[in-house]
């Protein structure tokens, strides 16, 4: 019996030592796990992003490199997410612009992913809203987007959004060859508006080949003024000439974020390609982009 009591005492002491060792190690161990859950959320968010979101928002989230299911490069229909406007500052400029200045970035992105933004073509994703992603998945993809925020990103000077001239006559002269590249690939306009030399190739919106003859669409507008307004403010005038009859809207099905993504020179190049002229005729109508 004495032996048993000695063994008991030794075992008890060893247990306390193991327990004490584990307790001493705890702060370091817990620190290792500290970011693990959020990190795995980001990883899981990455797989959701690349299988669902990258088609419109691009490989790096900059709405620059978008590919369809066959791996062909297409225009990016979505906004850039990987930028200082959305991610930098509390609240970030984008939050202020959207009237979300009292909320958080995570809340804003979460809400946008959940409910979508129908007028811009962003589908809704949250299961509670009828979409395919469960709450935790929306949270994961939100964390993935927020993970683009870095010190470098936020210390770069932000390029100011272009101030769009009110008169097309004030646009610089355009380069049709670059405009074709922008139309076909960079902004993917051809996916909806078709090829300018083949009538009927437009899948969704009005045929692009008709734009140069559209001087009469809005009373007193030149073709250039009409096209310029349509890109800046897609809902200002809804064309009656979509492939299946009058186009839907307002609001228009066309993304309204091109004024944020394009430069003024790109606008001129694109218009030069579509109107087949490098200088733009003006009737003096003021087209005011807010």
């Amino acid at each position, binding site marked *: *019996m*004495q032996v*048993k*009591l000695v*063994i*008991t005492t030794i*075992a*008890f002491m*060893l*247990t306390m030592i*193991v*327990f004490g*060792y*584990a*307790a001493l190690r*705890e702060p370091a*161990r*817990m620190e*290792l*796990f*500290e*970011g*693990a*859950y*959020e*990190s*795995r959320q*980001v*990883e*899981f968010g*990455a*797989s959701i992003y*690349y299988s669902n979101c990258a088609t419109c928002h691009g490989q*790096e989230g900059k709405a620059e490199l978008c590919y369809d299911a066959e791996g062909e490069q297409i225009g990016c229909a979505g906004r850039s997410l990987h930028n200082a406007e959305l991610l930098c500052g509390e609240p970030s400029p984008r939050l202020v612009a959207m009237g979300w200045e009292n909320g958080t970035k995570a809340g804003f992105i979460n809400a946008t992913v959940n409910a979508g933004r129908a007028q811009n073509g962003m589908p809704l994703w949250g299961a509670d809203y009828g979409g395919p992603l469960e*709450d*935790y998945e929306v949270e994961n993809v939100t964390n*993935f987007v927020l*993970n*683009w925020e*870095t010190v*470098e990103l936020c210390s770069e000077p932000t390029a100011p959004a272009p101030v769009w001239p009110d008169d097309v006559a004030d646009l610089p002269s355009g380069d049709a060859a670059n405009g074709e590249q922008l139309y076909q690939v960079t902004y993917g306009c051809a996916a909806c508006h078709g090829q300018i030399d083949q009538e009927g190739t437009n899948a969704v919106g009005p045929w692009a080949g008709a734009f140069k003859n559209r001087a009469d669409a809005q009373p007193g507008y030149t073709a250039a003024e009409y096209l310029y307004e349509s890109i800046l403010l897609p809902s200002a005038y809804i064309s009656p000439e979509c492939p299946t009859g009058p186009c839907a809207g307002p609001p228009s099905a066309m993304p309204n974020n091109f004024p944020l993504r394009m430069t003024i020179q790109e606008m001129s190049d694109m218009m030069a390609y579509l109107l087949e002229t490098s200088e733009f005729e003006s009737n003096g109508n003021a087209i005011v982009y807010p």
Partner: protein
Amino acid sequence: MATFFDEVKEMGVKQATIAKVDDVVERVTAGMNINDVRAMLRGDEPRRPNPRLRPHADSFWLHIRPSFYHTEVTHIYPTFRLGWLSTFMFVWETITGIFLMVFYTPSPEVAYQDMWNIMSGVPLGQLMRDMHRIGAEVMVLVVALHMLRTFVTGSYKKPRQFTWFTGMILLVLTLVLSFSGYLLPWDQLAYWAVTVAVSAAESQPGPEFLGRNINLLLRGAPVIGAGGLLRFYLLHVLLLPLLAGIFIFVHYYKVVIHGHSLPPGREAIGEDTAKRVPKAERVYFLPDIMTSEVMWTALTTLGLIGGSAFFFDAVIESHADPLITPLHVVAPWYLSWSQGWLKWIFPNPFTGGEFDSKVVVAFGIIPILALAFTIMPYVEVGRSRRYADRRVGLSVGMFFIAFMLVSNWMGSPEYKVQSSAEQEVAQHILPQEGHSILLEVPYEELAAGTYLPNQVLPGREHLTHALAEFEVALREYSCTNEGDDRFEPCQPYQSDQGTRFSNSAHTEVLPDPYAALVITQVQHNVYELELVFKTDDPENPVDFHFTKYRHEDAAYEVY
């Protein structure tokens, strides 16, 4: 009655205090004063009348324990302490379980996050979780061994048939307790193991509404969700422990009533002398059995805590996803045999077709086996407990154990489960769930680029090791038509889908594959790990990509 102050006046402070402490000890031990306790721990002979018997009469905790045991049953053989150990594990699981309950909410919204919080935000949380998990597995093992021991020593025979019967109930409760805890972390492992098990209920051969309703009762909805999780949680923390507690007491009461059966060779055939213990062969509970139990408690606690702290980590997989079934879902090891049986084919002699193996296993084999075990002591009534007289019974028992072990192996993916070769290779280094050689490569060793199997990267030993394992798996699942000396020659054969290739290990392998690991940086602290497989086989071209992401702080190295 004299108060303490009166006694102080009478005897002085010192004597009065000693008398008071002595009194308290006697009350707490229900009959033993300080001197009795000290004498007991010194190993002295008890005074007369023996005060060490009084706690068995008067105290709550000891009234169910026998006051003495036969010396023959106090050694390691024949009990191996397995019954005691089962009870210990039950208490152990209760204590660690209550700790975990504090930090757990049974809701799909937060359960998974709670698991991570237990590991990152709760001091000793991971240790508690590991202790609870290792305890559950040890408890299943101990209970099964306890049953085996009872069978081998013939202790289920008359008059202990009913004890065996309650033991069978406890075995089932232990298995269900362990399995019901499986769902609670709400990860992929939990979700799919339970989904598979519960779906067996749906296959019942009776009318359709019966299966549907059993399923609804268990899952709380057509698929396991918030309702199902809550049900499994309540089963796990309330109903099953309560039932187990009740049956443990019934079981133990029967053990005490009939006494521990002696080793089979120690008594005449057909006799049961467990309750007639000659004075010379008595070992008293106080102090010998008690100190022995305290010692085993200390040793088992040490083993379990040491094991959890240094050798065992309870797994956690990704968040439960009803839409994605991970490759190679397996039952826990203690139920793997049933998964093995599900892979069998049961021919139907009447129609020439085959029976649904789910029905045969869940509503045929398992209930029949359970019934056979339960009624065994009432049917197998041979009088002798001696090994030499029970050659047939013991042989059947040993054969059954071998059969269960083989069935358990059949439950593993190694038996009759193979997905496409490229998936098996990917699974080897970058599985969908669980430990991954590739994900555990330290983040610092990763860099964007394309890496080939077997590539050696100086200074990046973990990545080199992972690429070496990549090559090992690739060789196992590949063959060559072009004389590549890395691979075995292809053995072509015709199948429904045209010409296929096999090698000596597998029937479907990749002919002359190109395989690579492509690492791309997608965010400043996130890499994409993509496994690429391509073959030029004109009839069955493979172009397979499998992708996972690796965040700098995801802590795969430690977990």
